[in-house]
């Protein structure tokens, strides 16, 4: 297998975008091609979850490759729920690592705000098991609520820890010009003050409004290439060192141990194995915090902290921007937004930006090794990526 490098990155603002889905996918691709100066693309991968269902656009990859005038290059769409982004990067990695392609463009996009909020909730709910979960009115936040309650009982995580994650991420997003939310919040405002119940109402007990990520539109792109091509661009050499993926049961109630996210554990393990380094060596991580509880749990399952102690590390400030292992410097899904198909790629965008040293105000000092975790469904399909700066 050859080495694969991330040579170009691009992203749109994550907000309500009044552009068609195809343009949301193409814009970051244009930015990425300008970034590395490479326009000769062998294959295009487009990550998207809702194109057919809410945007009335199927075959998105074919539309994108033409809109970018990259025809006759090959193009394929990748749909893997919220893990579509990192899944598409994995496919791109395979194409370059195997020697089949020299340069691939991996872009992801989602336009969830084309429909109203109730329909967007229903769209995401279709991820659940059709007979054992969906018919009961199960939505993704409700699965997270069920999970959080168990976690709180077993490990002593409290609403305050969840609020701390929300505040940390949303305040990190203040330094990210592409983030969805540019609103400072405080733990006092969302938990302590007498008006907290109105400011921060329950969405799915015990998860509250500020524990859930916003519904966003957005797109992101990463261009992967072989070492020869990467050297010619003159950009910092950031290698996609490891890729890992693992799955678990579809119905959340069938999980072996209801408080374990085995798919994260397995994917992270495979990813670190391939990369040749471990959780201790990672300087910066982007974890999938669609719900604040997930950042805590993923940080444990990925191996950064012992199981059941993620919230203690959060208390100690280890995961803040100034801490030992900054998690979600971009604001994570909570602050930056969560256009489902684009998230995995946006996480990779942030890590590459950090490892290049171009992250400006939110730069993590001396970031050499980065990690992302893209969580599909509710923990039944997880893809982890590991990046390393080589020069």
């Amino acid at each position: 297998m050859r080495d694969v490098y991330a040579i170009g990155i691009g992203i749109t603002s994550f907000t309500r975008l009044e552009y068609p889905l195809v343009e949301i996918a193409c814009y970051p691709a244009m930015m990425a091609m300008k970034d590395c100066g490479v326009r000769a693309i062998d294959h295009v991968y487009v990550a998207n979850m809702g194109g057919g269902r809410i945007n009335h656009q199927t075959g998105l990859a074919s539309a994108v490759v033409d809109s970018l005038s990259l025809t006759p290059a090959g193009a394929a769409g990748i749909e893997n729920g919220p893990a579509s982004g990192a899944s598409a990067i994995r496919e791109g990695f395979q194409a370059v690592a195997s020697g089949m392609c020299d340069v691939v463009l991996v872009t992801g996009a989602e336009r969830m705000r084309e429909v109203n909020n109730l329909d967007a909730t229903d769209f995401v709910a279709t991820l659940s098991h059709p007979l054992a979960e969906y018919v009961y009115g199960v939505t993704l936040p409700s699965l997270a609520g069920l999970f959080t309650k168990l976690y709180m009982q077993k490990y002593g995580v409290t609403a305050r820890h969840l609020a701390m994650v929300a505040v940390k991420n949303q305040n990190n997003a203040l330094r990210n010009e592409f983030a969805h939310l540019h609103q400072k919040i405080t733990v006092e405002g969302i938990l302590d003050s007498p008006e907290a119940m109105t400011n921060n109402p329950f969405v799915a007990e015990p998860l509250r409004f500020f524990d859930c990520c916003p519904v966003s539109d957005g797109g992101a792109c990463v261009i992967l290439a072989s070492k020869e091509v990467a050297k010619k661009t003159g950009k910092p050499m950031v290698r996609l060192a490891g890729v890992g993926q693992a799955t678990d049961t579809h119905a959340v109630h069938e999980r072996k141990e209801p408080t374990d996210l085995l798919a994260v554990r397995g994917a992270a393990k495979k990813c670190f194995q391939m990369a040749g380094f471990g959780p201790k060596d990672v300087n910066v991580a982007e974890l999938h915090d669609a719900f604040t509880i997930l950042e805590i749990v993923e940080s444990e399952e990925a191996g950064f902290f012992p199981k059941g102690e993620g919230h203690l590390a959060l208390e100690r400030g280890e995961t803040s921007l100034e801490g030992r292992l900054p998690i979600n410097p971009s604001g994570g899904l909570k602050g930056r937004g969560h256009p489902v198909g684009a998230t995995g790629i946006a996480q990779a965008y942030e890590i590459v930006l950090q490892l290049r040293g171009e992250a400006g105000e939110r730069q993590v000092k001396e970031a050499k090794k980065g990690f992302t975790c893209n969580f599909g469904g509710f923990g039944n399909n997880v893809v982890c990526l590991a990046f390393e700066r080589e020069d």
Partner: protein
Amino acid sequence: MSVDLEKILRPIENPIPPFPAKHVTLASGEDMVIRQVTRDEIPDILVYVAPLLHVERDYYDVVAARLYGELLAYYRYRVQDEYVLVAQIDGEVAAVVNGRLLSPEVGMSYHTVALRRGLRIGAHSFAAKMEYHIDIMKQKEVLVVAESPIGFRRWMIEYKLEKRFDIPHELGGVPSWALTRELFDRARETLVVGRRPVPDKLLEKAKAGLLPPSDPPTPPEDLLAATRSRYDSTGTALMAQQWKQEGKV
């Protein structure tokens, strides 16, 4: 002579108890003051409502257009028994709510416009309005309608409003929903929050002036982008095409 004409055209001044100002702490940690405004403060508010007339998303344009008329009518004494409340953060106008009394027992809620989004400001302001009708003016029920789906979710669903479909609402004549005293009491704990009295310094700052909102909703930058979509959920496409044709863009 003109004085007599004006007397006929003006509404009868019924005494309405004033709204005692209250303050809430928002999710951002900031303090927001909700207070009633007098007629002479209305022109300042009109200036902030006017730019919303062309923001199509979430029906800001319809709401702003109707609200402008209601505020102007209040200012120039052409509407019966209306009141206007504003929510201010550090003097900046964050929301405007208004309504009127249909009869001593029944209130008619007009509009709720949030000029800063993401902090449940609209929710707090609407709750203050309902508190005014039911707790302070001691009315039996308030008739409510929603122009935007967000309003529908926040009011009809969250408060579980009763249908009063035989009564057409003044806003567009559509069937009304009602918030009765019983429903309000049930929702009291979780939806009606805020502390009184407002600390002097906060109230002074609020009364000192209605400052412009720092981050109000604006029309999209690229007006023609929506025309390239098959389905334009914002409604911008038609307006943008028309403006382009008329050379306004």
